[in-house]
């Protein structure tokens, strides 16, 4: 058994230390927002936040996460009370099939937490390693700018906010 801090609570998981975080999140903790895409750290759909930084959960063994804080999309907001980043993606209708979007939002969230006003170039560079085959890239970029504004005006950064 090992202890993992996910979305603010300590969870006991029965997993080998070399198990990728993604498997633990999906199979043991039923947190299904992070997606299995390539399993090789090349597509970005499994991205979650660890200690404020975007991390590819499919190539992150849980042995690395002792004493660290993991945040998944479920930890940002709910259907009733979506976080600013989620609201922005909904308002811009930035998802088509949506498979990559949870990962995109997590990296976007990490970026906006450390840089509240990223430039277009910074956003593009940051999201450059996320693959999306539907082609909603322009909407995703718009959603990023919208999220930056929302975070500055309406809501506090969701990390400070406890979700129910």
């Amino acid at each position, binding site marked *: 058994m090992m202890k993992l801090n996910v979305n603010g609570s300590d969870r006991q998981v029965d997993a080998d230390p070399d198990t990728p975080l993604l498997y633990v999140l999906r199979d043991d903790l039923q947190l299904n927002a992070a997606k299995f895409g390539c399993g090789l750290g090349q597509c970005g759909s499994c991205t979650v936040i660890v200690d404020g930084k975007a991390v590819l959960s499919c*190539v992150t063994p849980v042995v690395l996460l002792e004493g660290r804080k993991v945040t998944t999309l479920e930890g940002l907001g709910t259907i009733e009370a979506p976080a600013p980043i989620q609201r922005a993606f909904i308002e811009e209708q930035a998802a088509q099939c949506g498979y990559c979007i949870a990962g995109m939002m997590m990296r976007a969230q990490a970026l906006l937490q450390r840089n509240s006003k990223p430039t277009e170039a910074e956003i593009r560079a940051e999201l450059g390693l996320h693959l999306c085959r539907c082609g909603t890239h322009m909407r995703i970029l718009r959603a990023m700018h919208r999220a930056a504004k929302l975070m500055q005006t309406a809501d506090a950064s969701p990390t400070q906010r406890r979700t129910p």
Partner: protein
Amino acid sequence: MASPRMIGGIVAIAVIAGAIAAAAIVWRPAIAAIEPPAPQSFDSALVKRGRDLADIGNCNDCHTVRGAKDFAGGLAVPTPFGIIYSSNITPDPETGIGRWSEAAFRRAMQSGVDRDGRHLYPTFPYDHFTHVSDEDDRALYAYLMTRRPVHAPARDNQLSFPFNQRLVVAGWKLLFLRPGSYQPDLTKSTEWNRGAYLVEGLAHCGACHTPRNALGAERTRAAFAGGDVDDWHAFAINSQSPAPVPWDADALFMYLRQGWHPDHGVARGPMAQVVRNLSDVPESDVRAIATYIADMFGAPAPDRKRRGDDLLARAASRPAQPPSGGSGNAGGEALYAAACASCHGGERAPPYGGIDLALSSAISGPDARNAANTVLMGIRPREGERGPIMPGFADSMTDQQIAALLTYLRASFSHQPPWTDTAEIVRNARDTPADASKRDRP
């Protein structure tokens, strides 16, 4: 007995003679400014050849800041003596080389003097460019003078005394600049000579791959023995090469042309721009470079050759079985198994999978810097570039974990003695990320 007056006279004459001699070394006349020539006055075939030559010379790597205008200069080049900024080589009349005649351009290439007669710092590698033929200088000039002019004033270098005095450069040249065109070696093939001309001249491979002395000049007696640049190690490309599988001309050609080779790995760090540029030039020139460099490596000793063949045979029987247990480094071993082996020990060879680390020059290299850079930042093709991808682990692994991992990789996947200072190198690599951002817009 000489009178004081006579001694005074002799001293005065000596001083004057010395001053004249010094002036002759230091002083270079300005070359008259010209009206910027119209782009259409240049022959288009010459311009095209100039483009290929500029790619071989890797000009855009220093003279273009990533994301900014082509050839407008302004890139900070760190040196042990301070920071030197690259110059604007667009044909802008005020801030570029728009008023430079071809003779002025050729003088800069051959002896490192600008149109005004000022000595240029040898970060501009005229110790190599001096070997470029007049004909190739003409083509390069035609290419640069037909680029889009960009108004971009030079940035002030950040050098301390005495290095901020350009006459110091004149002394440097006396010691280290060996001007003169390339003299072919008639005992070698045409292709070898073409390669030697390019490698020693325009391509200036030694600028990174040859170690430098305390005055920043290449140690020609240690030619191609490996150097350090931009927080990366440029591997030795002579008989001291750390490559587990000995290089040959075919492998070099493939690597230089496409940026990676399944038996050697991926070109990263400053080499990434080199291979990007070489992907575009005439194939025959890349072949010639490969032929010459293969000769610099020399034929491998029989035991080295045998070990390389063994490694290749083992790598061919993928999935490679990671050596398990007994490493005495359970932490590093667990990290390899959990985070690396899915690609590096998987069934797919590069570019779709990771290289068998027993073949990697980074793991067999003289220090941990390149491996640390790669683990931290991963490998990411630049926009529009094709090439292998590796995720970076900077945000998921601590310095301590990366150091343990690197120590394990070194012990298990190379025949070399353990690295020293691995932990410190990892810390430095994280503090001064050696990624392309160094060359990004300031």
